[in-house]
């Protein structure tokens, strides 16, 4: 329903129909109150109108009505809580991680969208996805704030420099969809657009094969990360087999709940790993010393993403 001119009925992506249902629910409540209030406003203004120059008619001295006022506090409050609850429930669905999602790195720069797939393929301003397969977008920006907006999917999320934000998508319909930058980012903001192409799975596989043949020897993101992990000297302090060294082991690090020296616990997601590489003393794992150097200067955005992708493979 948010697009009244293209009421196709078929969901473009998981939960986009749920968002539309919330929209229609709110619209129904708004419609009722719109007709009630505007109807009474116009009816009273005309019904009790007095002609120009006529002396005012006698009017009753009414200063309030406790019952009526109670009704229009309680009833709207209950409806508002219902709207909140429905919007909340669907929002949580939109934000819930989809298990088994393929990961795509999204890097926004003034005024270009860069996409990188797990096997190392890159594309600019074009994102191709297979229909029916969940995808996790791991997004960041190299300069200012951008916003990734797919109107047909009812999904939107800002991209921040120096931080990861995420979107989970499950395309349900093949076709071509618009991606817009929704957060004002400068002179070329309005031309910072990309295309999402959702393909049947077989077609998508054929396309992937074709791309790979074009660039033989292409490293996957995790392979690149492994190389960086080793060349940066990480294995000196961090084992990948579970034995503690100077630093904690990285076996099964991704998604693990980490105990910190200051008593906090934190779940190791992409953002945690990134901050631990850039500013290691921000989060010191319980039982270890704050001695790790920062890799902020040596590992660029892409490199960080690669090392993190490698760490995810250490199960």
């Amino acid at each position, binding site marked *: 329903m*948010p697009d009244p001119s293209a009421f196709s009925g078929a969901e473009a992506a998981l939960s986009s129909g749920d968002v539309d249902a919330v*929209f229609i629910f709110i619209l129904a409540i708004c419609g009722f109150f719109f007709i009630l209030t505007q109807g009474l406003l116009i009816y009273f203004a005309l019904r009790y109108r007095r002609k120009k120059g006529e002396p005012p008619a006698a*009017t009753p001295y009414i200063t309030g009505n406790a019952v009526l006022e109670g009704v229009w506090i309680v009833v*709207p409050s209950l409806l508002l809580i219902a*709207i909140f609850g*429905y919007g909340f429930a669907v929002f949580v669905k939109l934000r819930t991680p989809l298990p088994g999602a393929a990961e795509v790195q999204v890097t926004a720069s003034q005024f270009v969208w860069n996409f990188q797939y797990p096997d190392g393929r890159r594309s600019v301003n074009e994102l191709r996805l297979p229909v029916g397969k969940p995808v996790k977008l791991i997004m960041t920006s190299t300069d200012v704030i951008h916003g990734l907006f797919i109107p047909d999917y009812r999904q939107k999320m*800002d991209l921040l*420099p120096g*931080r990861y934000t995420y979107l989970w998508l499950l395309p349900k319909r093949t076709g071509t969809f618009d991606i817009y930058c929704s957060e004002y980012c400068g002179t070329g*903001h309005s031309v910072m657009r990309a295309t999402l192409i959702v393909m049947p799975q077989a077609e998508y596989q054929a396309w992937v094969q074709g791309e790979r043949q074009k660039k033989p020897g292409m490293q996957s993101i995790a392979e690149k990360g492994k190389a960086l992990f080793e060349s940066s000297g990480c294995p000196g302090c961090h084992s990948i087999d579970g034995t503690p060294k100077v630093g904690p082991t990285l076996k099964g690090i991704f998604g693990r709940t980490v105990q910190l020296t200051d008593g906090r616990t934190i779940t190791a997601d992409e953002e945690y790993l990134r901050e631990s590489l850039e500013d290691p003393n921000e989060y010191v794992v319980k039982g270890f010393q704050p001695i790790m150097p920062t890799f902020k200067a040596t590992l660029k955005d892409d490199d960080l993403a690669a090392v993190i992708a490698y760490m995810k493979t250490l199960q």
Partner: protein
Amino acid sequence: MSEEKVPSPGLRRGYLKEKGFRSWAFTHDHKRIGIMYLIATHLFFLIGGLLAVLLRLKLLTPGPALMSSHAYNVLFTMHGAMMIFLFIIPAIPSSLGNFFIPLLIGARDVAFPRLNLYSLWLFLAGIVVTVASLLNPIDTGWTFYTPYSAKSATAVTALSLGLFLVGMSSILTGLNFIVTIHTMRAHGMTWYRMPLFIWGMYATSVIQVLATPVIGMTFILLVAERIFGVGFFDPAKGGDPLLFQHFFWFYSHPVVYVMILPAMGIISEIIPTFSRKPIFGYKAIAYSALAIAFIGFLVWGHHMFVSGMSTAAAVIFSFLTFFVAVPTGIKIFNWIATLYRGSISLDSPMIWALTFIFLFIIGGLTGLFLGALATDVHVTDTYFLVAHFHYTMMGGTVMGLFAGLHYWFPKMTGRMLNERWAFHAWWLIVAGFNVTFFPMFILGMQGMPRRYAEYPAKYQPLNIVATVGSWVLALGILIMFVNFIRALKSGPPAPDNPWHGLTLEWTVPSPPPVENFEEIPTVTDWPYSYGEKEEPGNDE
């Protein structure tokens, strides 16, 4: 009460009698200060409106025509910054508030007249610095989001400092009003005998004093980051890019109520006066103004649901947001109930007041789509949002301001407006406004992002409609201002009390004399004793 057709003697003896630059520049008279604010803010309304017409002209076509993307970005930034900071925030409080708070509470001036003049000078100084930034006009949007605003090569520093001064002026004005309302009320004017405009202005002043320092501080941090390279907001320097948004909206959301509460106050005066009925639910309206001011401080995060803020924070902010809707709804129901069985005269102030209610209902209801989390994700940062806040800010605040201007024009100037001109301006503005902004709801639902200099061609038809609407709107506003200027020169002299109102400003000549009241009045009743008290059970 019934022979007010006699021209008021105030016309030759009022506060406007003294002439000359010094009589204005160094006046302590709250009325003169109010008039100067009125002229300054409305000048920026007209300039900001002209920019809007240019913006709409650019959007007539989807491609690169008429002006560069950079020029477009500068124009929408200027339109927003001028309309928000130099017009809509100060427009009602500083102009009508200054002029009418002392008159409505039966005082000879505000509590601190010199401070009031100082606020005006700060405001004018802020305008000068702000206008100086036009030498290298900024293109960051009126929201100045970092890191873009920290990196932009345009005059962000100058504009920030200018708005800092404007903010100082706003804080001092709010402080002045709070003290005035507490200490300067006439004998017998208890809190529950205060006109509702005073309640609205009181709530407004509290927000101004509490919230404005935060934006002032934020501007200083931004300037420090730009000039000295201190990394408050830039992640490359260890800053937090979202921190700016939190600071910004911590001010800029409450300030939405600085814009709307005074307008609601005006409506609460006009509706009973022109319906000849007591206001329905006085205490509920008064307290809901305070409730809005209070809850308004707790909901800033609803501007940031897709900013990267945590899901848990978004949920809490959404929940609190819906509680602002309750007191807002109470006011609307109370105004409509006041009309019931009234004897309603549809003079120009009343038409504007009814228009306020009509448009503000649309603005308020569409806010529910933005407050609810799931739907906000889709419509935020699109034209839906643009339509929503124009319905609340222009459809609400500006229509309330127009109502107030038509209502109090005779008192301020001693002249009556031409009702026929006012009527023609009214229908052109209402038609133009809806034709301009209603299509934007649909554009936003279809996904058209805001702040787009160029846009996909599929959105063009509705953009053409909106642009044509902007011409009608501009014509209506032009006619309204011509009516003001004509009436200033040649309008018929106004009586003391043209609308038969019961608030205290109508007991003094039009225009009021210096120091307003020869003798401070004694108040024995609330100002809404219209109608006849009926015996119980005596129906019609």
